[in-house]
């Protein structure tokens, strides 16, 4: 497979209408991809086409539009299953996003394996969405949330992880790629340790699916949560992948239409998986858009995307290292395209505002990962997060913008 060359990237950028604009008098440099990614024309067109030609409610209608909508929705499920390395599309449950997928596992699966005194193990680098659902579950069940610490490069301390796993650990919930640090966790190894201890594993893949080739079978986990909008798809759609036998055994989460076969006042018979977990009319257009996203990403190839982003990350790291006032936060050996940093003497929000005036969009703040900020003893960082449509020239522009920040605050 040929690598993406800068000229290929310039061509791919044309697929993203939003990138072709000026912000505050400068060409837009979009480096906030970990917050949300931009959408290619193919995805925007698929959603428009759905509403202009195919829109109907799904599954029960017998008319032509209902069939087209159902095919669009279920077709997207099949595509996403293949994209994530799942063998059975029934193992994909559509959700609003990663957060809802994790909440689904916590609410429906959690109480089936947890009791008072049991433990849920998470890492110190989790996003709030992989902490708070487990805290709520602990309140419901009397279980205890245990944290596996990371080292100062932002990598899980494997010895501490092993030590905190025990026969009481029933669920291990871990982020695949850290949104605040970029760390790529060794999920296969961590999952194997967790399974050996008898725990089930839940992986937060929000930041992974847009940047790495995902193979849930190879990862070996029990649950994998992902998001559409982080991988160039629409907002409001995401998915939970789970092994079929686990979904079969789990009780429903929300009740309503779609998730039942028969309803009487004496009781209801639940639908088969995955529909059992999709109560109500789902986000059909969102799923159709997500299906188009998968098609689009597969034409490029996730390995090529990952390789280009790695090249960008190395270039960006180099650019930042030439500015002595900048300190990188998150220097794991295995990293995805996230550059989180501090600018000496300048608050992250001032950095963000000045970069914005240069047309550069970055994220500033705690990145919904306050425990990570606490670990490094900071309130906030500035974060530049990359996607395959970014260029080395844009990272040079970031460097120039940061020099301007330092000039203002000199």
């Amino acid at each position, binding site marked *: 497979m040929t690598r993406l060359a800068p000229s290929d990237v310039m061509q791919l950028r044309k697929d993203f209408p939003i990138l072709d604009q000026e912000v505050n008098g400068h060409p837009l440099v979009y480096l906030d991809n970990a917050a949300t990614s931009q959408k290619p024309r193919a995805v925007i067109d698929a959603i428009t086409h759905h509403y202009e030609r195919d829109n109907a409610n799904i599954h029960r209608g017998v008319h032509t539009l209902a069939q087209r909508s159902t095919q669009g929705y279920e077709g997207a499920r099949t595509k996403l299953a293949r994209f994530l390395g799942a063998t059975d599309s029934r193992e994909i449950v559509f959700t609003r996003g990663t957060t809802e997928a994790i909440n689904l596992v916590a609410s429906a699966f959690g109480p089936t394996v947890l009791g008072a005194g049991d433990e849920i193990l998470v890492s110190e680098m989790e996003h709030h969405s992989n902490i708070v659902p487990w805290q709520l579950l602990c309140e419901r069940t009397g279980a205890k949330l245990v944290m596996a610490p990371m080292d100062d490069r932002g990598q899980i301390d494997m010895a501490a992880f092993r030590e905190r796993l025990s026969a009481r650990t029933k669920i291990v919930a871990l982020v695949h790629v850290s949104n605040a640090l970029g760390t790529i966790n060794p999920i296969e190894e961590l999952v194997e340790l967790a399974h050996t201890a008898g725990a089930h594993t839940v992986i937060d893949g929000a930041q992974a699916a847009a940047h790495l080739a995902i193979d849930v079978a190879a990862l070996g986990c029990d649950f994998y949560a992902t998001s559409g909008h982080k991988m160039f798809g629409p907002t409001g759609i995401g998915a939970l992948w789970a092994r079929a036998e686990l979904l079969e055994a789990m009780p429903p989460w929300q009740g309503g239409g779609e998730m039942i076969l028969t309803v009487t006042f004496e009781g209801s018979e639940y639908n088969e998986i995955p529909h059992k977990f999709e109560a109500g009319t789902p986000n059909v257009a969102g799923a159709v858009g997500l299906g188009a996203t998968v098609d689009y990403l597969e034409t490029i190839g996730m390995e090529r995307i990952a390789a280009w982003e790695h090249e960008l990350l190395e270039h960006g790291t180099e650019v930042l290292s030439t500015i002595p006032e900048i300190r990188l936060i998150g220097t794991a050996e295995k990293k995805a395209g996230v550059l989180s940093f501090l600018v000496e003497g300048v608050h992250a929000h001032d950095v963000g505002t000045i970069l914005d005036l240069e047309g550069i969009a970055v994220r500033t*703040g705690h990145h919904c990962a306050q425990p990570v900020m606490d670990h490094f003893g900071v*309130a906030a960082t500035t974060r530049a997060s990359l996607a395959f449509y970014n260029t080395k020239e844009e990272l040079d522009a970031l460097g120039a913008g940061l020099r301007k920040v330092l000039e203002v*605050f000199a």
Partner: protein
Amino acid sequence: MSDLRELYQTTILDHSKTPRNFGKLETANRTAAGHNPLCGDRLTLYLEVDGGVVRSAGFEGSGCAISTASASMLTEAVTGKSVSEAETLFQTFHQWVAGSGEADLFSDDATGLGKLAVFGGVREFPMRVKCATLAWHAMSSALAGDGATVKTE
């Protein structure tokens, strides 16, 4: 650079780098904390109020240039003012930087704001209005005497 200098005026940069009345005010009899959960900024405002007049003011905490400069200039501006004058100044300041929610309701009247008028540039940056007003909300809470932590969210 014009927008940039409009926001980060020389006076604001000066007060952010060298905040005045920084540190705990030992003689304070009114204090309140301010917290902006969006950026993690926290500050504590101290006031010594005697006979209905703010005799001295101080603050501590960490924040961005806008919130630090705003707190620093607040402590200078309210010292010597009556409690009701300080409250009125807050209202004038708030309207000056944030309007009343609509861009066309921005006050064009900087009368009485003195040096604080330099914060007018903030109105072009709606995301930063909370930075400029955090210390003032804390002051208002301290004067009301309820001692509750003021949150911007």
